[in-house]
């Protein structure tokens, strides 16, 4: 099996507040293979965006990475000094943000922003950088790129701006692109186009994608594997097709069942009772136990670790731990 491009192990991110320290991420572990698209799903507040921010090293103080390891091609990047980390950003890991309307500096033209980024990471002349920039814009689908490159951001519509953002994120040829809700702020009609662009251009360059979203439809279309986050912990990881059709974790099952499809037969959508716990009120044991209809004794006392099952699937649930399931008689 090939070595993972990105490897996250037991990542813990904490936020000190006056009422105690909150753990936004509580020992999150996963891998991303070169060239693959890993979807990261979960409700608002589950920790998806924080994971992306932690990987690229942009957690805002007072938040901080408290422990754990993040490795890019085997080398640790979570403990690098700021200057070394900066060299990685853009060059090896790129990031696409959610809101195209605020991601671009309104006082500089697109050309200036692209050329600046290119020349920061690649040693070339201004003319050379400009050529690359125009080619890139053309590739992401901006019509008349050579002319429009000298426009200011406010001359572009939302969808067009997001294409510019993608171009900016990829102009230094990174190996991994973290896309944090790249389509949430866009019109529905434009969303699928942008996802297409992102997927194509990354595939072309062999870049892996960490696609953070709460939209399962996007994941189903685009991702190879998916990781499900709940209350700062990983609930399940696996190939997209299998996780969707045959979820292992009760939370994932609830998540899939709550998505309406055209072919669905039932009258009502499945609803998971209750709500995801606040970070300062996470129950002991498995974080999902108050809402789980299959919870049994160990779920209330011991936190389930991520278990590797066959077919590249992982799940953090006592139901799938054959040892535990045998220990305690089912109720």
């Amino acid at each position: 099996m090939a070595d993972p491009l990105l490897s996250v192990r037991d990542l813990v991110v904490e936020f000190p507040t006056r009422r105690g320290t909150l753990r936004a991420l509580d020992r999150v572990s996963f891998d991303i293979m070169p060239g693959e698209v890993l979807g990261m799903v979960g409700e608002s507040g589950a920790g998806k965006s924080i994971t992306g921010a932690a990987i690229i090293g942009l957690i805002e103080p007072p938040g901080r990475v408290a422990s754990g390891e993040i490795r890019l091609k085997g080398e640790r990047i979570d403990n690098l000094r700021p200057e070394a980390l900066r060299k990685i950003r853009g060059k090896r890991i790129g990031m696409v943000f959610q809101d195209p309307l605020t991601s671009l500096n309104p006082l500089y033209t697109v050309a200036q922003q692209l050329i600046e980024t290119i020349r920061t990471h690649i040693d070339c002349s201004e003319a050379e950088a400009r050529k690359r920039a125009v080619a890139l814009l053309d590739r992401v689908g901006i019509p008349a790129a050579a002319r429009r490159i000298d426009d200011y951001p406010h001359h572009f519509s939302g969808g067009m701006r997001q294409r510019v953002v993608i171009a900016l994120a990829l102009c230094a040829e990174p190996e991994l692109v973290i896309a944090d809700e790249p389509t949430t702020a866009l019109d529905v009609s434009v969303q699928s186009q942008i996802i297409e662009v992102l997927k194509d251009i990354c595939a072309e360059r062999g870049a892996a994608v960490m696609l953070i979203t709460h939209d399962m439809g996007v994941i189903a279309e685009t991702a190879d594997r998916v990781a499900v986050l709940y209350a700062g912990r990983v609930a399940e990881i696996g190939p997209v097709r299998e996780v969707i059709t045959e979820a292992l974790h009760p939370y994932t099952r609830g998540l899939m069942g709550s998505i309406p499809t055209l072919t669905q037969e039932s009258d009502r959508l499945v609803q998971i009772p209750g709500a995801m716990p606040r970070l300062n009120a996470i129950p002991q044991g498995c974080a999902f136990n108050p809402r789980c209809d299959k919870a049994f004794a160990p779920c209330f006392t011991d936190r389930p670790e991520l278990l590797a099952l066959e077919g590249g699937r992982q799940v953090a649930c006592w139901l799938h731990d054959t040892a535990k399931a045998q220990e305690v008689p089912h109720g």
Partner: protein
Amino acid sequence: MIAFILRRLLQSVIVMIAVAAVSFSLFRFVGDPINSMVGQETSIADRQALRESLGLNDPIVLQFGRFLGNALQGEFGISYRLQMPVTELILQRLPATVELALVSGLLAFVLGLSLGVYTALRRRGVLSNIIMTASLIGVSLPTFLIGVLLIWVFAVELRWLPSNGRGEVVALGDWWSTGLLTHSGRLALILPAITLGLYQMTLIMRLVRAEMLEVLRTDYIKFARARGLSARAVNFGHALKNTLVPVITITGLQLGSIIAFAIITETVFNWPGVGALFINSVRFVDVPVMAAYLMMIALIFVVINLIVDLLYYAVDPRLRVDRAGKAH
């Protein structure tokens, strides 16, 4: 663009006319012009005659029109107190104020900008906290107190700098005089410039800091960092540039208020400028001078406002509706 300029010009004219109306009312109705001009012994009949000859019995609108006409020609009557033409008085003293205002404005801007950027970038540093605390003191210190304390330390105790006056001045051209060309003139400029500029500098510094902190929180700065741009590019190329847009415009507006604050500084240091002239005119209810000063200040403010608006337009591309027009 042309439409914008025309509209602003029109607004300025309207404001000036409104101020002229206030000035005129001052002139006409505060105190009695006749009584302020003549001595006690003048007979009633003579006063009436004077009133008639000065046109004070004509309809108000006519008087206002005359006032406006005179004002446009720079004619503001005679000072009650000094018995000299007001315009001449003001012109005589204007260079002193303008020089002081420009020097302190420059000082305030340069220092304020540098300190503001520093305290925004090194937000939690010890030096930053000291500077911020000192700035609060700066805002709480009234200008006159700064002046007085500076005089005490540097003029009375240390005797390094003069405590009043302008030093030697050199005439430039017809009516301008400058103190910058003589050693004593330059020395005399130091304390007043610091006094006048300190408050402005504090304001600018706090403004720059606040704006920069706001800008540093934006998405485009986060994205710039995420693209691996150097700290210098992010902080100065992106953050500072965006901070400067509102800062320059607000600072420009401050320049107008410096001229007004000069009133205080000039009083403390016996600086022979228009501010001191105005204070004396308030003390003695010398209405022509008050009215003229008001018009002059209004003109300065209006002109500065206009320039600042144009500057904003030139600097922020979002305000320009040019070839691309709509977003597409």
